């Protein structure tokens, strides 16, 4: 790679990062279950794109493998697994009642993004790594938004997507801070995500069959005394 193309790659990565964060916000704010899934696929594609850009920028073939694994597991395998475990009825569900309305959710999301920058700052000051100033804070922000999604959405599938969005955020940060993560760790992570999806998908199906709902946020038989 020539030094002349470096600023271009940097700019493209920043753009990818911005879109990545927007998709995380989208998962917080959409009501349709199917739309959440599509946003998650888009987010995973952006993660793969960023991995390719960094792979070229840093000359790291590992990151190209990360991109390939991300596309294979998150954009192909996960939608396939979900289609086969969760019934179509669930996808047509529209969440009427949320824990928090959408404007307030977005307001809190904005605060979370600022917190993410505050958290990432001391790390970036300590060690200077190319691309980390984009990927680390945005990855942490996507993590926070994913966790927030789990808290505000009551349907099972969006909660799962929130969880996977947290994982996407971790990897978005990870590709910049540890571009040469051992291949074995990448493969292991590639196994982890489908297993999470399979387990939660099957559990969703069992809950749907047993209780006639997938609104897991409303289950409240177990309480602290």
């Amino acid at each position: 790679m020539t030094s002349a193309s470096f600023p271009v790659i940097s700019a493209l990565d920043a753009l990818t990062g911005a879109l990545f964060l927007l998709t995380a916000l989208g998962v917080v704010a959409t009501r349709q279950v199917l739309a959440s899934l599509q946003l998650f696929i888009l987010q995973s594609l952006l993660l793969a794109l960023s991995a390719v850009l960094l792979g070229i920028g840093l000359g790291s073939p590992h990151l190209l493998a990360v991109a390939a694994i991300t596309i294979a597991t998150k954009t192909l395998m996960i939608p396939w697994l979900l289609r086969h475990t969760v019934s179509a009825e669930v996808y047509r569900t529209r969440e009427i009642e949320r824990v928090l309305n959408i404007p307030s959710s977005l307001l809190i999301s904005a605060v979370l993004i600022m917190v993410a920058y505050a958290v990432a700052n001391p790390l970036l000051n300590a060690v200077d790594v190319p691309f980390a100033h984009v990927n680390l804070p945005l990855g942490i922000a996507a993590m926070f938004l994913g966790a927030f999604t789990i808290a505000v959405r009551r349907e099972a599938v969006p909660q799962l997507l929130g969880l996977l969005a947290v994982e996407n955020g971790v990897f978005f940060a990870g590709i910049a801070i540890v571009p040469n993560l051992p291949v074995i760790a990448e493969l292991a992570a590639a196994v982890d995500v489908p297993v999470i999806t399979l387990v939660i998908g099957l559990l969703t199906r069992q809950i749907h069959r047993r209780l006639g709902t997938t609104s897991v946020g409303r289950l409240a038989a177990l309480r602290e005394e």
Partner: protein
Amino acid sequence: MELAAILAVPALASGLSLSPLGRRFAALITLVAAAIVLGLAASVAIGVMRSGRLDALDQWLTCDALGALILLLVAFVGFTAAIFSWGYIGGRAEQQAKIQRYYCLYNLFLLSMLAVPLLANVALMWIAVELTTLLSAFLVGFEDTAEALEAAWKYVVLTTLGAVLALLGFLILYWGSRVAGLEPFTWVGLAEAAPHMPPALLWPAFLLILVGFGTKVGLVPMHTWLPDAHSQAPASICALLSGVETTTALYVILRLFPVVGSAPGLDARPWFIGFGLVSVGIATLLLIYVRDFKRMFAFSTVEHMGIILVAAGLGGAEAHIGAAYQITGHAIAKSFCFFAAGMTVMAAGTQEIAAVRGLIRSSPLSALALVAGGFAIAGAPPFAIFVSELVILKAGLTSGQYLAIALLAFFVVVAFCAVMFHVNRMAFGVPERDTPVKAAPLSCKVALALAAIPLIAIGLYVPGPLQELLNAAASAMGG
């Protein structure tokens, strides 16, 4: 050699559990596998005592004293819980396929817990911890009731979320060890790299892992899923979840303690003591108001995890030996308690404390086991937890940490009274109506008897080799 075999045996048994030979074969093969694993774990522990550390498979697998202690405890509870499963699961499910699936997952769950202390590569170890949750999710939801499924859902979503937070922590640790110029991503490599790591990286990594895996340990305030999962799972699974699964996650946090301690300017101790005391305090409060006896044992687990964390945070060889002893006592006593709880559920048909009165008449064995288990986990003499708590309190006093010790002692005493109050009423209260006497399956009695042997024995006398293992494990925590 043994290290690889320990992982291969349950893997093989999980496949054989699904064979067309049926549910009795699945139960038998699981039992045999668990017995072999226990034997191998004992031989690993002896080998580690002799040479300090065992390696296998080109150093992909490794085991030191702390790892051997965890391995031994997982193998022991895995064995007794396999015996308990025989009669308990057979009585609670009809379908052949469902029981075979139970044993298949049981072996895989055991495999993932055994892998945690054995995998040398920290990234792979993270996967193993993550798999302990994913493989046990359907065991938690085994009863297929609304409550069990809700518990399984909370369990998977919250502990996986915690594990993913911890993943970022591990990635930052790896980043730090590369900045320090040291490559192998193992606990040994991390301990060497830590003094050269920028504290600005090590500290957030530590906090992410403490909070992330702390969720799995059941530290307050991330504990909310724990009483649900540990009360809704079948008793045999509760014994594993409460007795050793929490400990395997805690093991990772304890491993991190000397790593952070060796970095200049960082002190993890206040965080350990703070998180530990809050967990002990809140768990004590919940123990007073608890209405479900399986939940009571679950809250007691939160309490014990807090005590171990405080002991690690107090620092010093004495406190760390207390922590290792408490880990051992907890695993044995808590699995015993859940066996007793399972037999009580079988006899009384309910988990409500208020609905069980005068159990001593309708099911003397369950009542006796509940009282003995209650004494053991609450920390009464002559049981191990009494000794370990005494060691921890004494170590704290010697090192002059009076406030932490005063709070810890207060909570421990209140928790003791709360547990004994509930257990007493269940065993000796006057029953509102006569319940028919039901005999427990033989296998459950055998499991209870086997768990009772170390329960009574190690409180009275710690054999030389075990004491050596505890001492060596304590020094692996940073001495």
